[in-house]
């Protein structure tokens, strides 16, 4: 089973409110990633966990938090949503590092009003 699951599929949030997105995989992959994708733009890597080690991109460091309580689950947390956070959020996992094939979930479409 190469399925990566994401919940919820759609999320409506108010400006200033927190948002928590969930991702899970049962492939025992070491690495889990979160991407943000806006229309007509490339998916942008926000952060990834290699095992228990979190790596966050410099330009999104303060905007997104994440946790990985176990190998299968990874969350993406926005403490205070702004309009600019409206986007598709894609979760992916890979067996090891960035060189490996990434398996993507269907995404969570977040709309901030």
């Amino acid at each position: 089973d190469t399925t990566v699951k994401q919940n919820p599929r759609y999320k409506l949030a108010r400006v200033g409110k927190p948002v928590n997105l969930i991702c899970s995989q049962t492939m025992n992959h070491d690495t889990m990633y979160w991407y943000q994708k806006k229309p007509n733009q490339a998916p942008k890597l926000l952060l990834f966990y290699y095992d228990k080690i979190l790596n966050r991109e410099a330009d999104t460091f303060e905007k997104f938090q994440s946790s990985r309580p176990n190998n299968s689950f990874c969350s993406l947390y926005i403490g205070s949503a702004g309009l600019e956070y409206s986007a598709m959020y894609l979760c992916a996992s890979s067996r090891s590092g960035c060189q490996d094939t990434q398996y993507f979930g269907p995404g969570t479409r977040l709309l901030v009003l």
Partner: protein
Amino acid sequence: SQWGEENLQALSIQEGEDVTMNCSYKTYTTVVHWYRQDSGRGPALIILIRSNEREKRSGRLRATLDTSSQSSSLSITAAQCEDTAVYFCATTGYQNFYFGKGTSLTVIP
């Protein structure tokens, strides 16, 4: 930015035609991944080419990689309606993974 030239934004072709999508990148990479994304789904890997390969084939797909010019291409032979999707190339850097903007391909019956 990891990317040099921007990818084509949209392509529309007739069923049965061949199509080639190109991408170029700026920094060193050892692998170029090509993903396709269907509407409502996440990207899925369709072909991967490593820096020691110049060409890779998989069914009707053909990927090329020119490390000297830092460019890659994806060709689809005899396109079919089910090839309609957005295609992304992606490269791996040190602890990072860069996607290009993607090409929206529409195959018209």
